[in-house]
């Protein structure tokens, strides 16, 4: 009932890690993840929705609510479980000298925000958690930020995720205008198409799930530590995009955007499956495989196989996380990341790796088979395009081929194995799940089966593809039947090789576009600065100077003129009157006499 409290232990753990000591960081992280796991398991097989009004602006209300239905109640324990296992694995994978506080804090932040994405019942809350997840991914990819390649990769990831975020925010605004609310049930239930808004949300989902054309960040995201790749970029974060698409699935259906999903998914599958064949880095092959399988899920949603895609999402987390952790162990003991140089060294390790490989390629009875085959079968009678079925079979062939290559090339190498139980036991536990989760689709519990009935006959073409791939892989990579020189000497082969190595030149194109825009913008800003801003400042200076000159002139002519003028007038009068002062007594007497005569005259003859 209280499964929506699952992020809370991680939230407390986040602060406890930051404020505590480095030695305790790992233990706190593992404890909080485990408590979150227990709490989230309490929500299985329960349906509930809790909503709390957050704030209102006019007629629009924004809520802070949790929703638990089949979709979230399976993902929640999955995230908690893989987080716990990855934390235990990290205690041995990361050396003591690393910045463990930052690592566990970022991972806890990621886990709690991923849970918030799963639990939210409206787009706004999911958007906040979405941003947090993007932030944690950025911080964790660039965990070793001193390395130039790592810092470049973290910026690339964040740029693409931001493009998706902007699109998503715009989509949210449009949907808010169309529906008046951002609640999922309300939006899905309204049965009105909102193509533009939903499409913008799709762009956000594609950026998070690394679908074409926003897939370029995921291979470079492998710069982060392997446990980060296991948790974020295979099992949980990249699923957030698929999760969003599943949440708004009725809206996408009504708006008619499903064919876009199908095509984008199919292109992503084929694109990344071919790129994986030319890649030599053990983690990058798995990254391309993630893009490919996410493409399967997108494709499945696009052709209407809703439950099959979600089942595949669930299964894929287990075997991909396991494969990444195995890759981490291989890197740890071989001190190299190339498949030509790494080795298994131990039968146990090779065995669990084989389990993951078979699950990925879709061999029964491992879990990958059950979900992948449902999608393939749905492709057989899909309504979007007849070309999908052969394409998806081709995709099965390619994905089996690259993963067998991933396994066979290192298997030939020999070396001394070196790993501890804390790394091996999580992997072993995951392999048990890989064997068993396939059976969640059974006659007793039908949610994962959905509308499609399962037929054994549908599995034959895909099984044939897998077998063919195995034969080819065995011949080329184990026995060395076709040497790589055959490719180099053939001009077509050279071109293909060049295209694959340059990742179909998407990276180059994006970088060129991006730098052109940034440079043009900065040039514009520079011109604005020089013309407008400097013009204003210089103009102000010139005006001040002019004002000063006028003031000076006024001072010199007006003020001084007045003052001097008064002085001159007084001087003139003084010159005039000084002549009265003769020093001669008789002149004074003459004035007196004259004055008296005047007085007599006035008194006598002038009447007042």
């Amino acid at each position: 009932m209280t499964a929506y409290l699952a992020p809370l232990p991680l939230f407390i753990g986040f602060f406890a890690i930051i404020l505590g000591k480095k030695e305790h960081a790992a233990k706190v992280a593992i404890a909080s993840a485990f408590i979150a796991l227990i709490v989230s398991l309490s929500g299985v097989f329960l349906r509930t929705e809790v909503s709390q009004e957050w704030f209102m602006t006019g007629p629009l209300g924004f809520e802070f609510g949790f929703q638990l239905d089949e979709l979230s109640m399976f993902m929640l324990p999955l995230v908690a479980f893989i987080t716990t296992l990855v934390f235990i694995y990290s205690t041995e994978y990361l050396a003591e000298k690393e910045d463990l506080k930052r690592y566990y804090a970022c991972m806890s932040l990621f886990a709690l925000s991923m849970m918030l994405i799963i639990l939210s019942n409206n787009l706004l809350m999911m958007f906040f958690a979405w941003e947090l997840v993007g932030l944690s991914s950025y911080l964790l990819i660039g965990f070793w930020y001193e390395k130039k390649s790592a810092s470049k990769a973290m910026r690339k990831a964040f740029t693409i995720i931001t493009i998706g975020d902007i699109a998503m925010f715009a989509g949210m605004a449009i949907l808010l205008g169309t529906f008046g609310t951002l609640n999922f049930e309300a939006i899905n239930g309204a049965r009105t198409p909102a193509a533009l808004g939903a499409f913008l949300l799709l762009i956000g989902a594609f950026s998070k799930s690394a679908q074409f054309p926003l897939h370029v960040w995921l291979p470079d995201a492998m710069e982060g530590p392997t446990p980060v790749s296991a948790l974020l970029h295979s099992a949980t974060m990249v699923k957030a995009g698929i999760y969003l698409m599943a949440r708004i699935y009725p809206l996408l259906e009504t708006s008619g955007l499903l064919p876009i999903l199908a095509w984008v998914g199919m292109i992503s599958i084929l694109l990344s499956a071919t790129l994986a064949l030319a890649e030599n880095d053990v983690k990058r092959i798995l990254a391309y495989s993630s893009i490919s399988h996410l493409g399967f899920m997108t494709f499945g949603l696009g052709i209407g196989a809703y439950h099959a895609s979600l089942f595949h999402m669930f299964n894929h987390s287990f075997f991909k996380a396991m494969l990444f952790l195995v890759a981490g162990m291989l890197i740890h003991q071989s001190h190299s990341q190339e498949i030509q140089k790494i080795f298994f060294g131990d039968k146990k390790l090779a065995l669990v790796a084989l389990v993951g490989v078979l699950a990925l390629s879709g061999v029964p009875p491992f879990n990958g088979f059950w979900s992948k085959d449902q999608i393939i079968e749905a492709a057989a009678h899909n309504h979007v395009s007849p070309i999908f079925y052969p394409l998806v079979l081709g995709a099965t062939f390619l994905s089996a081929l690259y993963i067998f290559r991933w396994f066979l090339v290192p298997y030939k190498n020999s070396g001394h194995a070196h790993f501890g139980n804390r790394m091996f036991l999580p992997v072993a536990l995951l392999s048990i799940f890989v064997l068993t989760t396939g059976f969640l689709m059974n006659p007793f519990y039908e949610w994962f089966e959905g509308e499609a009935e399962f037929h054994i006959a549908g599995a034959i073409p895909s099984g044939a593809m897998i077998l063919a791939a195995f034969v080819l892989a065995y011949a080329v990579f184990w026995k060395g039947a076709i040497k790589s020189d055959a490719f180099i000497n053939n001009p077509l082969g050279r071109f293909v090789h060049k295209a694959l190595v340059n990742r179909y030149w998407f990276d180059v194109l994006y970088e060129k576009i991006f730098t052109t825009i940034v440079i043009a913008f900065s040039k514009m800003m520079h011109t604005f600065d020089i013309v407008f801003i400097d013009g204003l400042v210089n103009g102000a200076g010139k005006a001040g100077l002019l004002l000063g000159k006028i003031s000076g002139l006024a001072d010199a002519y007006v003020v001084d003129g007045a003052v001097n003028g008064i002085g001159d007038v007084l001087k003139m009068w003084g010159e005039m009157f000084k002549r009265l002062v003769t020093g001669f007594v008789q002149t004074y007497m003459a004035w007196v006499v004259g004055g008296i005569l005047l007085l007599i005259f006035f008194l006598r003859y002038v009447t007042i």
Partner: protein
Amino acid sequence: MIPASWFVIFAMTVFATAAYGALTRKNILLVFFCVESMVMAASLIFIALAKTAESQIFVLFAWVISAGDTILALAIFLYMMKKAGGVELDKIKNLKW
């Protein structure tokens, strides 16, 4: 009888002449004499137009006062002789601009 108006005309003539002399003489003693002469002319008018004895007594007062200012005039004359060393008024021009 001599008409009173003839005395007045005579006194005014004396007064005018004395005034002219006071204003134009160079010798300071002559200026003093002219001033005394003006006083006598004025007192003559008093006597000529007297109806009662008060006016004639007033003339006596005038003579006494003019005797007093003659003393002062002589004192100034002595000081001037010391300073300027002559009787010409032209010599005193300290206050000329």
